[in-house]
């Protein structure tokens, strides 16, 4: 499997020369005649925290799943690190965290991390190193030998985030990572996301329906009914709509589209 590694290395080198880590162009998707994604386009630059903001059911989850390659768009194209999705090898470089914690509750925290590390083909030494790093990141180092069934909801969420970074991916795609987490931990997670971006140059796509989280992103796309209603940095958006905060931007942008 040496080939995989060389290939990934190559991908990384190519990506470094490019601006867009993730490029979504004019994608449409519908389920049972209901349009879920309607002409969505976006470019995510390397080292950016890109926020997808919108109410529940706006199509955020479908969009990130399509980027990961779990869903296929009806039309349009998606490329990640300049590779057309869906592509299995690119997945090695994407850390995906779904809305559900998706942990094996009969297993300990460590066993969960080991399992996913093995799926990414990390060797024993790498596994050890990454598990120590990821569990430290979410402050669970001392709880690793407990069964995750005995974890609190917040601990599970944190472990789920640790799983997403286990293989040291360049891109993190996090679907509502802070839902159901207390403010203190939410603050800690956001600090960590910024650190991952600043220190390790990670590109992070995050969905949320909470406006105060939107302000912490570098770049925002507001989504409503499968359509991107406006895009820009938080400051740009507030200025261009001439309003007090992002919530008002969302309201105004929503009105404009109708």
């Amino acid at each position, binding site marked *: 499997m040496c080939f995989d590694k060389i290939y990934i290395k190559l991908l990384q080198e190519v990506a470094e020369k490019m601006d867009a880590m993730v490029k979504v162009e004019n994608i449409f998707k519908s389920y049972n005649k209901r349009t879920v994604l309607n002409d969505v386009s976006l470019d995510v630059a390397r080292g950016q925290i890109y926020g997808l903001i919108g109410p529940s059911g706006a199509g955020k989850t479908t969009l990130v799943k399509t980027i990961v*390659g779990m869903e*296929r768009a009806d039309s349009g194209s998606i490329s990640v690190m300049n590779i057309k999705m869906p592509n299995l090898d690119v997945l090695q470089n994407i850390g995906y965290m779904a*809305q559900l*914690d998706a942990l*094996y509750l*009969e*297993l300990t925290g460590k*066993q969960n991390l080991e399992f996913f590390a*093995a799926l990414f083909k990390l060797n024993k030494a790498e596994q050890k190193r990454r598990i120590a790093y990821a569990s430290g990141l979410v402050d669970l180092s001392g709880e690793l030998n407990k*069964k995750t069934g005995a974890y609190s909801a917040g601990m599970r969420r944190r472990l789920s985030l640790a799983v997403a970074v286990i293989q040291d991916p360049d891109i993190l795609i996090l679907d509502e990572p802070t839902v159901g987490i207390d403010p203190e931990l939410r603050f800690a997670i956001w600090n960590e996301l910024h650190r991952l971006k600043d220190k390790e140059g990670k590109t992070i796509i995050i969905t949320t329906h909470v406006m105060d989280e939107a302000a912490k992103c570098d770049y925002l796309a507001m989504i409503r009914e499968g359509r991107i209603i406006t895009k820009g940095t938080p400051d740009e958006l507030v200025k261009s709509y001439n309003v007090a905060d992002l919530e008002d931007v969302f309201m105004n942008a929503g009105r404009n589209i109708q």
Partner: protein
Amino acid sequence: MRVRALIKRILLQMIGDKRTLGLMFIAPLFVLTLMYFIFNSSAVNLKLGSVNLSPGIVQALKDANFDVTEYPAGTAVNDAVIKDKLDGMLQINGASVQLTLQNTDPTKSKQITLKLNQILASGLNPGMGAGAAAGSGGIVNSGANAGSGGAAAGISQNNAAAMRMIPTIEVSYIYGNADTTFFDILSPILVGFFVFFFVFLIAGIGLLRERMTGTLERLMSTPVRRGEVITGYLLGFGIFAAVQTVIIVLYAIIMLKIVLVGSIWNVLLINLLMAFVALSLGILLSTFASSEFQMMQFIPIVIVPQVFFAGLFPLEGMAGWLRALSRIMPIYYGADALKAVMYKGLGLGDIWGDILALMIFAIVFIILNLFALKKYRKL
């Protein structure tokens, strides 16, 4: 490596879930043992009332393991049968013999008729011979349902001493022997069925839980290949299915002393194949269920009909379309092969058709599983 990780994870999960493990290993043994005792319980003596019978006949009846209670002449037969919970009442009025049966249990009714015919025909009944009209026949009986209060139309029955000279029949058996019980024929089918049912249940619900908790989706967001996922699941659950199969088979043969004429290796081979079919079918059907309850709904649709075609009921008499239906049931082939090996003592050469059929089922289900996983990732 990924397959190994999947297998290791499934093993850890199963060991971590003691209750499921218990269900998988203990429940089949429990049910099998229960059925063993139920089918091998000793027969209860039939309770027969008698009116007007000569002491000779009464003695003959008692020798034939009837519990005989004598009633005075003129007893209201139906009332007595119902009130005293008799299985039947035998009366002799002159030349005619009248039998009234309770008939809430047709098996008992048939037994009584059969035994009485034997007794009367074998001519051990001095009270009967005299004055009996010529001609013979079986006893024609009439049932007096416990609920109906109507007069029993006790059809009189001429029986004759003409059958006195019955030669002894020498019986030889191709399969089994005089002591063969229904359980002996049933047990190979039961062993196969329990292996199939419990593996189906555990694999189906195991994978369903993965679908519901989102772990399968997360699995599919890693670079793992669909083939690796299916292989991992088949082998991971397969290890448990294999252990379970060996335990059930050994328990049935060593502890319950189920008849095993053929080779135990063939029995294990057939059961392992059935477990594999159940495994791939359970995983496949869990795709179409969105909760544990919905998974349970597959039991009456998928599992129960298979029981009907497993050979518990004779297939020969079934309509053509029904028999055609039996051909698409995995248990039909498994049960057929198990009966052939365990009861008839046949070898691989005689059951290769069944083995092949089971293999085809497994392969088809596995291929369908590969496609079903596309639900989670379009690659």
